[in-house]
């Protein structure tokens, strides 16, 4: 069985007026199928309001499925008894770095999760140290989060999840509020966790540059999964992506334009290096 298996997942936000009559129904997830294997790096792309955040919140059971089935780590997400086990095995990092740091000292924040699940004191200290090291923030352990940069705050948040020793980490637009350096820091930390610790990563974003390193990409629109495949396969469909309010990295777009203009460049160029090589071969 896959680590995450969602079948025909549905979620509706129902708005009611004062008399409890249904005013409007917004279908945020509309029959989503998702399969993620242990150790995979999966990216979920989609414009704002495409349902990708709603999907993320299901993986950690912050939202309960309104229809369909969801299994995480071999456990049924609809069974209330599995709630804490799933939340421990699938950690979550949110968009706003300020709104997810609970404590006023970095290391105390990282210790918050283990405290909640009743880890003994000596073990918490070990985990905190290990997690902070794994995101390169150990030298800030006694600092206040308020004076850290956005990228550093997000790495603290990742360490806070790591300290719970999850098998999978879901990141819901972790870089949307960061500057380019912060984005790079966070992305490098995440890729390293995936590569070196075999952590399963689900990255939700609308920055196309961030998903080139993913094993697989899902594209969402209007609550549905509309495309899935390797980054190369996805990025070779420039016009389809544009119709979903998305974009491709500048280099991919240039390769696409050159191809349209008649140069025999292969489809789905992802990096600058690839384009240089392709052009040199033609020249």
């Amino acid at each position: 069985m896959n680590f995450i298996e969602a079948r025909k997942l549905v979620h509706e936000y129902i708005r009611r007026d004062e008399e409890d009559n249904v005013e409007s129904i917004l279908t945020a997830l509309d029959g989503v199928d998702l399969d993620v294997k242990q150790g995979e790096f999966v990216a979920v792309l989609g414009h704002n309001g495409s349902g990708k955040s709603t999907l993320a919140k299901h993986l950690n059971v912050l939202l309960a499925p309104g229809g369909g089935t969801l299994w995480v780590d071999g456990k049924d997400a609809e069974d209330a008894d599995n709630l804490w086990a799933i939340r421990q095995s699938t950690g979550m990092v949110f968009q706003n770095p300020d709104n997810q740091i609970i404590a006023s000292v970095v290391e105390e924040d990282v210790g918050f999760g283990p405290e909640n699940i009743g880890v003994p004191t000596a073990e918490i200290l070990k985990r905190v140290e290990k997690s902070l090291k794994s995101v390169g923030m150990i030298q800030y352990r006694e600092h206040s989060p308020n004076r850290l940069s956005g990228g550093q705050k997000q790495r603290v948040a990742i360490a806070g999840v790591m300290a719970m020793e999850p098998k999978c980490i879901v990141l819901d637009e972790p870089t949307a509020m960061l500057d380019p350096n912060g984005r790079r820091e966070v992305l490098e930390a995440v890729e390293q966790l995936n590569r070196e610790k075999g952590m399963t990563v689900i990255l939700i974003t609308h920055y196309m540059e961030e998903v080139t390193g993913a094993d697989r990409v899902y594209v969402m629109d209007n609550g549905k999964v509309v495309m899935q495949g390797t980054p190369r396969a996805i990025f070779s469909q420039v016009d389809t992506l544009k119709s979903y309010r998305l974009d491709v990295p500048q280099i991919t777009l240039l390769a696409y334009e050159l191809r349209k203009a008649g140069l025999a460049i292969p489809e789905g160029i992802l990096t600058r290096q690839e384009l240089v090589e392709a052009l040199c071969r033609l020249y």
Partner: protein
Amino acid sequence: MLRDITIGQYYPAESVIHKLDPRTKLMATLVYILSLFLFRNVAGFAAVTFWLLLVIRMSKVPFGYMVKGLKAIVIILVITVVFNLFLTPGETLISFWKLRITEEGLRNAVFMTVRLIYLILGSSILTLTTTPNQLTDGLEKSLKPLNKIHVPVHEIAMMMSIALRFIPILIEETDKIMKAQLARGADFESGNLVKKAKAMVPLLVPLFISAFRRANDLALAMEARCYHGGEGRTKMKPLKYKRVDFIVYLAVAGYFAAVILLRRF
């Protein structure tokens, strides 16, 4: 504008005071505050001053940094001085127009000012040397007996520590909102009281909306990290008294006795 407030901020340093058990610091602060309202002569004043300076020195927090925190209470200080100076009956020292300053008034004004300043300085040592989490841990543990009469001690402590974490963030946000509205020609300063109160609406609405949003986000983040109340929770830094705590308790007791004794002179 608002970034100068130091009350409630933690100042990281390696000092004896920083390492004390928060319960010890809470008790010492309580005794100190009590002593402020007990001294009534220069000798008592000297003892309190000596104690305060000693503790500030030991805390390794720069004195200038602490004094900056006083800016926030300047208005209260001025009001205190004016009230005491002019409204205390007694021997007239100077009088002009309809006002007169009495000897008792002067004395009261000086003592009250000193008390207020010392109160802020003393209690800011507590917050500057104790992380909010330690502080709330200390309160939680000291107040644990109240659990028996169904006071949700853990929840209150958690709320306090979150409030402390978000105060600087909200202050900064207020600053940003203020600037955004100033850029649209808002005026927070001129006009009478009603007009001023009305001018706050464009500031308060975005601030409240943001605060609610943050609260909502934070609740989700806490749940995602398996927070489910105080039950079954362990502590990363459990409170344990060390030898130095007992020494400090003795010193505090000695200090308190000295202040009481000095009242006789």
